[in-house]
């Protein structure tokens, strides 16, 4: 299983639950797998999650393919710090970020964020904050292939 190897990289208490992934991301399967292996049933009441998916349309053009460049060491460091930040900012049981890089097609999942907590308010807020910070500050750069050729995406999307 892809996911077992992904999550086994995490040594509890050492690494934060942030993963960079070059191959296909199955967000809901990875979320379930993570939950089954890292969370204790009954210990949390709220799970908020978000998946960002590549659309086949952007800025008025059909998009055939996208390559997501990153700065491996800085990107990992940024994601780790972001997990630390949300874990200290909200009362959470756990959080998770999985972010693709490399080449992807429309319909492919790009990013998964999740937060577990006792109550829904914290889970929703933390999950959303993870996405807002990823969009605003995580070192990733999108290059799209359209019928007109390749182009860098110049602004973080909504």
């Amino acid at each position, binding site marked *: 299983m892809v996911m077992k190897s992904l999550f086994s990289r995490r040594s509890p208490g050492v690494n934060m639950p942030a993963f960079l992934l070059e191959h296909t991301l199955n967000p809901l399967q990875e979320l379930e797998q993570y939950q089954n292996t890292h969370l204790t049933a009954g210990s949390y009441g709220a799970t908020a999650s978000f998946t960002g998916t590549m659309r086949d349309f952007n800025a008025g053009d059909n998009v055939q393919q996208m390559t997501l460049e990153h*700065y491996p060491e*800085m990107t990992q460091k940024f994601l780790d710090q972001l997990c630390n930040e949300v874990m200290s900012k909200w009362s959470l049981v756990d959080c998770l970020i999985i972010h693709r890089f490399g080449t992807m097609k429309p319909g492919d999942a790009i990013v998964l964020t999740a937060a577990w907590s006792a109550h829904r308010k914290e889970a929703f807020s933390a999950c959303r904050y993870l996405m807002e910070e990823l969009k605003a500050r995580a070192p990733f*750069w*999108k290059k799209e292939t359209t019928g007109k050729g390749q182009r*860098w995406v110049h602004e*973080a999307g909504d």
Partner: protein
Amino acid sequence: MSIEVKFFASLRETLGIESTSITSSAGLTVREVWDSTTDSAAYPVNTLCAINMDYAHQDDAVKDGDEVAFFPPVTGG
């Protein structure tokens, strides 16, 4: 001192540099690292920079052994 310098995404393509290193006997700011490695190319508005994988400012001082990076606004997520 010796500085490792990296460029990403459209900056990497425009400048034609992925990574390089420079040595200098004087102290340098991030912006001076840019000037040294790009032959003083114009510094595009909104360019972001990092020292040792943390966001930094143009006028921050660089130390021996640091890794400095330049990149355009991020577009992940």
